[in-house]
């Protein structure tokens, strides 16, 4: 049986006193891809930020176990160094900090955390150039300021490049497909697929079924008002696409 990477138990979280996650349960094993769908405001992005430890959210109940251990007390940088990676919906632009420097500092932070020696600039450049292929990125991107002036597609590719470099055990892709044209979407999805191994797992958060044509999930979950209300296979995504989220409203009403 494969290892359980993530186990979320009755998770409750709020921001500015407003409860957003209202008892969420989820279990993810190594090698699995889980899609989370749902309307705007259903708590999908909040869930991704709470997993990564965003300081604005307060966990008010339940637990998050990562590789068997609670991470609620861990700082965001520790969680990252332990192998939790969040590909942001809106990557931040940082003027004056080169993409290459940022990648190197991040890479070395992880090595240091695991008691490994930091690698020097030259070796790092070689490593990064290999990884550029994953997202078909031009090396000139490395010299530019982090995300500054990048198009929507370039920003998302840059997120996947970071993922390729940091080799996380759990990747959370928060609406990585939003704002992408079909070509960019395919490049990003192919990148994600290349990085999938039997040891790691990912959560793909999306509004639309479209991304799931490229990244095939093992499970599809539907979120509604801070909970996962339905779980199925990729057929569930197709059904949602066809019948719309009203289908979920009906489902919830019936359940209630």
């Amino acid at each position, binding site marked *: 049986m494969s290892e359980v990477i993530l186990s979320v138990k009755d998770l409750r979280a709020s921001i500015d006193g407003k409860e957003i996650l209202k008892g969420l349960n989820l279990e993810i094993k190594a090698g699995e891809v889980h899609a989370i769908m749902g309307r705007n405001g259903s708590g999908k992005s909040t869930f991704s930020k709470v997993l990564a430890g965003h300081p604005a959210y307060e966990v008010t109940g339940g637990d998050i176990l990562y590789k068997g251990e609670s991470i609620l007390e861990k700082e965001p940088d520790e969680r990252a160094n332990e192998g939790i990676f*969040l590909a942001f919906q809106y990557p931040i632009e*940082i003027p004056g900090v080169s993409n290459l420097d940022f990648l190197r500092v991040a890479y070395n*932070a992880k090595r240091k955390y695991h008691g490994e020696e930091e690698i020097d600039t030259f070796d790092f450049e070689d490593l990064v150039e290999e990884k550029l292929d994953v997202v078909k990125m031009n090396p000139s991107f490395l010299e530019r300021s982090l995300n500054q002036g990048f198009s929507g597609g370039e920003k998302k590719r840059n997120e996947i490049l970071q993922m390729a470099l940091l080799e996380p055990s759990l990747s959370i892709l928060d609406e990585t497909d939003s704002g992408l044209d079909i070509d960019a979407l395919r490049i990003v999805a192919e990148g994600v697929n290349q990085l999938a191994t039997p040891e790691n797992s990912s959560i793909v958060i999306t509004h639309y079924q479209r991304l799931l044509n490229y990244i095939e999930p093992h499970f599809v979950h539907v979120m509604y008002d801070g909970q996962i209300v339905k779980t199925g296979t990729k057929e569930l995504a197709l059904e949602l696409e066809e019948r719309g989220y009203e289908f979920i409203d009906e489902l919830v009403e019936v359940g209630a």
Partner: protein
Amino acid sequence: MSSTTVKNLVNQPYKYGFVTDIETDTIPRGLNEDIIRLISAKKNEPEFMLEFRLKAYKQWQKMTEPKWPHVEYPPIDYQDIIYYSAPKQSKEKLNSLDEVDPAILETFEKLGIPLSEQKRLANVNVAVDAIFDSVSIGTTFKEKLGEAGVIFCSISEALQEHPELVKKYLGTVVPVGDNYFAALNSAVFSDGSFVFIPKGVECPMELSTYFRINNGDTGQFERTLIIAEEGAKVSYLEGCTAPMYDSNQLHAAVVELIALDNADIKYSTVQNWYAGDENGKGGIYNFVTKRGLCQGVNSKISWTQVETGSAITWKYPSCVLIGDNSVGEFYSIALTNNKQQADTGTKMIHIGKNTRSTIISKGISAGKSKNSYRGLVKMGPKADGARNYSQCDSMLIGDTAEANTFPYIQADNDRAKVEHEASTSKIGEDQLFYFAQRGISEEDAVSMLVSGFCKDVLNELPMEFAAEADKLLSLKLEGSVG
């Protein structure tokens, strides 16, 4: 940013805060004509210098302290300051730096400025003039510079050895009655550096002055004069530190630069005076007048400053562009934290034709500090084809700091061009979270964000100092985000 995420990055202990215990020759507190005569006599100055001082003192008495800077401090009691304090020396005149009181040599060594012959070898590209309280205690590499015709010494020594040069240039850029603090400085200045680069000479090494205030009741009033003759070129750097005292010390300096035809002067400052504690107790009042005169055609004066210390900073390194095609530059990083206050910027006065100036100012405010950029660009009636470009960026760290920009533009010539850009950004929770999510600690994140923000200015510093200044910025911010 939430209060929990923004608290701890400038609370790093100030490592230059120690006091050196030495015997001093200190004059009585207070200021009057007799004190000025006493200072002048102690320095065995030529008559013209005493006249200069007394004239300045008379003007100062008629002036009032400026109230327009955006800073607040209790009234200064000018009669409670000691205007001259010097380490006692066993001999009248020292033959070499190695004869300086070992306690003082050790002080400079602790500050990372080795002065003794053997130690200096490691740092062969920089000549240093070291100033301790009111006097210069020595200048390195004098002989080597002398071979190139460069004069680099304390201004006291210049008054003995080259009085004609001092008389010709002193007060020509900043007149004795220029402003309240410049007048005070002109009356009581005790030492400072003097640089003369003769015609056609490119100074073979970086020159620098290191200022150290040691005595708790002493004001430091130094005077620096740099002259670059036709086609001469020099790069000069000053650094400053002081011990931690609960009281405030006044530092009122005057710096004058003169560039003749085709001359080029680059003046860099890394200022790390004691800033007071986190509640604003103690720290240096840094009230400084710095001005450069681009007198000759095609001359260039470039100011680069990294201001990280002092309780209050009040300074506007300026360029008066008289020579046609002359160039003025001002690159500035001003970082304030806790209760520090800074009102700093520049003046670019375009007088000659086709004169050009560039202003790049980066203000970083953290804690409960106040940080203001104040700048004037003036295009005179004859400045045909003159151009200025100004960029003033502010970065806020946390929710309790203040950043202001006061740009003044005065154009009396419609064939001159002035461009101004400004921006304000904030190191917020989302930026820090992005870094944290990639495994980067908050302190590393802030230091990367700040050096990224300051890159355009750090690039202007001489290489030896750029890395040091970058490190200083992160140190100063340590703990401001928590």
